[in-house]
């Protein structure tokens, strides 16, 4: 297999990047400009030319919308493949989890680390940040899915279950907690008490976990797609490492 990494119209840059006469910082300084046009000859792929254009913009677009970075680079087939696979996985997971499995929360009882993976899908996961800001300081979320009576409602010594209200227009309930699409669970989340997060798990069962798993996997897959938009197929990286050595 042979490989060439070229800047458009400037073949000398390849010799510079190959590391024969320049230091690491110099190489890093030229890296962006050099990695705009990649060519390689592979036993399976044949001779391939990959034009990355401005790979930083491509990476940003790939993060914002899976596949968009590749569309920008005019790599339509791969862009379509990434878009279908990643967004399909993300939205199926979101549907399985009833629109509640993607939310941003840093509360002590509900540190939602999964959102850091889900956020890699880009714009489709961003409503969670809007909702997190909206419900801060006990505010109401946008896109309300249903309402519930307040948490911690005690009748004598018994803890009364939440009551689900799917049609708030007919049921005028004061002080109800609201489930929002991609919003964190309303009210405090305490392991020893009945809370909204517990209700979500009770209502959806382990579909909540499966939906979370789908959306997390979608985010992690998009990291691979972002890398591909920035640096081309992984095969380039292997050869470039050899050149650096």
């Amino acid at each position, binding site marked *: 297999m042979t490989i060439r990494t070229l800047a458009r119209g400037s073949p000398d840059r390849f010799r510079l990047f190959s590391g024969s006469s320049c230091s690491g910082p110099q190489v890093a300084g030229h890296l962006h400009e050099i990695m705009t046009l990649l060519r390689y000859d*592979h036993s*399976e*792929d*044949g001779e*391939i030319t*990959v034009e990355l254009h401005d790979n930083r913009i491509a990476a940003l677009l790939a993060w914002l919308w899976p596949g968009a970075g590749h569309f920008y680079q005019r*790599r339509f*087939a*791969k862009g379509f*493949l*990434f878009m279908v*696979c*990643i967004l*399909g*996985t993300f939205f*199926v997971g979101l549907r*399985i989890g*009833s629109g509640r499995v993607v939310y941003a929360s840093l509360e002590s009882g509900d540190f939602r680390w999964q959102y850091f993976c889900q956020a890699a899908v880009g714009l489709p996961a961003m409503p969670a940040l809007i909702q997190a800001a909206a419900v801060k300081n006990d505010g109401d979320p946008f896109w309300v899915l249903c309402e519930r009576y307040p948490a911690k409602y005690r009748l004598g010594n018994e803890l009364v279950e939440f009551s*689900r*209200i*799917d*049609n708030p227009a*007919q*049921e005028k309930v004061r002080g109800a907690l609201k489930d929002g699409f991609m919003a964190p669970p309303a009210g405090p989340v305490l392991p020893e008490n009945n809370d909204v997060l517990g209700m979500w798990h009770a209502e*959806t*069962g*382990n*579909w909540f976990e*499966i939906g979370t*798993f*789908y959306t997390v*996997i*979608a985010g992690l*897959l998009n990291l*691979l*797609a972002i*890398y*591909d938009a920035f640096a*081309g*197929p*992984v*095969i380039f990286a292997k050869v470039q490492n050899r050149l650096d050595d």
Partner: protein
Amino acid sequence: MNLLPLIAQIQLIAEIQTVPRMYYILPLIVAVSFVYGATRHERLGPILGHSLRTAIWVTTFLGIILALIWLGGYWN
């Protein structure tokens, strides 16, 4: 209280649960294999070949884990 939306949701959950949960891994294997293959090649033919190999590898790996867990059930 209008219970129709609640009933509709319960029916939906019941419909979902008619599909064995283990089958929900299949779309994930397909998606992961395609994306993994696409990050290694540029043309569709090699991408499909690599995806197929990845899918077989992942399925085999998960099958081994499943078999170990299944056998572990007999241990106790």
